[in-house]
């Protein structure tokens, strides 16, 4: 029997979602529009569609993740795709297999879309050069986390109708945060003014070149802000070389009801999670449904990821 020829070489190049930096405003708006339609679906009793029936989605997670991974998992399943999740942190790569080798192996299984989370910045870009399917970045190093920014945008739009004209503050460990970077690009693109606030040791060099104002003082940085995005401070960075102590950080950069008063009267709080209560945010504030959007972010995350999978999985 003749073996069927592999025609993948003549297929047109798939589009990837590698970062907000590579996204046009039209593309971003299209994702947000699509996602809106999925919000109500996700709240209805029957959540399953067959949009991606017959398609294979591989979640390739080199770094542990709970919410992003389960969100992508659920999003794929709700669209009817066959979803396979690989936690590579403890398998082949530990045996010396390179990212490229893993990519080639997976590529041979003909997936339609690969969702990748990797500890190294740029890993999704490298992967996208070596596979024939679409690649969606679920977070790479400290570079980008595009679906997080998109779900943040959707959450804001859901509450404030539009992002245009808003003033948004991003506070905390900007240096190590891919969430901060993706949000800076996206919020700027959608017409917001962005402030970043954090201690100098956690502020990346030349951050203003990304189109933000940077502050080391919460009072100044939060002034007239409509949205306050708090970032997670990694445990290992709380003590020693970046900061003197957890206490000192909370004193100057932890979000408390008092500090929130510096922002605009109807300001809302966001956090990509998981939260360090009592380190970057007061625990009561985090749970206050009148100001905290944390639960909504998680909910709308599924809708945004469904929209991304639908658009990029072709």
């Amino acid at each position: 029997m003749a073996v069927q020829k592999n025609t993948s070489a003549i297929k047109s190049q798939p589009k990837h979602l590698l970062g907000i930096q590579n996204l046009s405003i039209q593309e971003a708006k299209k994702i947000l529009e699509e996602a809106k339609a999925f919000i109500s679906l996700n709240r209805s009793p029957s959540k399953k569609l067959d949009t991606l029936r017959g398609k294979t989605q591989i979640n390739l997670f080199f770094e542990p993740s709970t919410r992003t991974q389960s969100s992508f998992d659920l999003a794929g399943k709700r669209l009817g795709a066959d979803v396979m999740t690989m936690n590579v942190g403890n398998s082949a790569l530990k045996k010396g297999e390179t990212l490229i080798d893993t990519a080639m192996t997976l590529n041979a299984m003909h997936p339609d879309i690969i969702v990748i989370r990797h500890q190294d910045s740029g890993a999704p870009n490298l992967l996208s050069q070596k596979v024939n399917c679409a690649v969606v970045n679920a977070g790479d190093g400290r570079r980008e986390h595009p679906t997080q920014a998109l779900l943040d945008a959707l959450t804001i739009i859901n509450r404030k109708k539009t992002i245009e004209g808003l003033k948004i503050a991003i506070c905390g460990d900007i240096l190590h945060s891919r969430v901060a970077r993706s949000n800076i690009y996206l919020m700027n693109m959608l017409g917001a003014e962005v402030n970043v606030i954090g201690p100098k040791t956690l502020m990346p060099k030349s951050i203003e070149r990304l189109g933000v104002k940077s502050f080391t003082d919460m009072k100044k940085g939060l002034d007239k802000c409509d949205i306050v995005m708090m970032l997670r401070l990694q445990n290992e960075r709380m003590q020693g070389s970046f900061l003197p102590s957890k206490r000192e950080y909370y004193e100057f950069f932890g979000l408390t009801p008092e500090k929130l008063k510096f922002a605009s009267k109807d300001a809302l709080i966001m956090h990509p999670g998981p939260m360090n209560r009592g380190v970057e945010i007061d625990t009561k504030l985090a749970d206050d449904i009148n100001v905290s959007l944390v639960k909504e972010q998680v909910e709308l995350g599924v809708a945004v990821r469904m929209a991304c999978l639908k658009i990029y999985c072709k």
Partner: protein
Amino acid sequence: MKEKILINARIIDPSQKMDEKGSIIIDGKGKIKMIGKNVKKSDAISSSEVIDLKNYIVIPGIVDMKAFVGEPGYEYKENFRTLSQAALAGGVTSVVTMPNTKPIIDNVSMVDFIIRRGRDKASINLFPCASLTREISGNEMSEFGLLSKKGIIGFTDAIKTVQNTETMSKIMDYASDIGVLIMQHVEDYELSKNGCINNGEVSTRLGLEGISYIAEKIIIERDLSLLSEFPCRYHINQISSKDSLDVIKRNKEKGLKFSVGVSINNLSLNENDIGDFKTFLKLSPPLRLEDDRTSLVSGIKSGLIDVIVSDHTPEDEEGKRLPFAQAATGAIGIETLLPLALEMHHNESLDLTKIIETLTINPAKILKINKGTIKKGSDADICVFDLDKPWAVKGDDLKSKSKNTAIEGRKLQGKVFMTFLNGDLVFKSK
């Protein structure tokens, strides 16, 4: 060997302040017999071979002060034969090789090995360095005296820096007595930890850990401080930033004697060239801002920087096809050293003579070798090039065993036409 006469060439030899149309006679022993505008065809014996070099420039064979040859241990990256071919195709006739091989060149028997191996396999003049510290560990100094007697030209930990100030002061103190050349890679590891590119806008955008210019500056400050106490022959392998240059200027003005190198990469590229994670541009020291690059060029002009090196670092594809942070550091460059340096002549930022000086007589003087000159009586190591010939760099066409060029696709002007080693024509471009 038959006597040769090269005629109608423009001869540029900064060692004798020569830039003139003239002829060169190479005697039967491969030495320069006569050179200059007054040499006539009739000065050569009638049976000599006449080579007409109309429209070409003749300079001394290039001396490259920093190249990595894969032998021993990394033959899959480069070997003496492939390095020689690449060097000669770039007009380089003398190469200082780095000791960070496997095993490391830090003892007398390894020196015997590489000198023998080089003699058998290489077709260029090799000047091997041994490591500054045993096993490049940064702890104990190597046997400077014994290794020098065996033919070691200088001591360097190649891509590593002696971090311990006490060790460094002892090294310089000891070296100042016996007169050996110390060549330091300048990088503070605590400050450069995990870093892979310049700390700046590009590292912020790409989400990569940056290396601050301070990591380089602080070691230069330290070493020059020590040098004023222990005046030894001290050379900084490569600098990359404007700030380092400021420190060097201050110290040279105070009268401190030392020499400084720069890689051709830092003179012709900046951090923006890294683009979307081009691992071939992951270099050490890293590419920095355009402002740094232009400062380095003016550093050459003002004489603060003495030599340009290729920093030839062959790496195979496997080492480069990785996420940026994990990818190997370094790029090949020995074959494109001169053509890329000529860019600075074509864009009028440097005099041609100055460029040639940093590639020939300056490194030879620092190394105290009789190279980098084509004065009467010296070895006929000669590079002949076409100053204006346009071409585009294609990694696959380069002679090095590894193809990791940092300037793939770059359009250059100027190409090596012929290379002579001890009077023999060892390379001719097609």
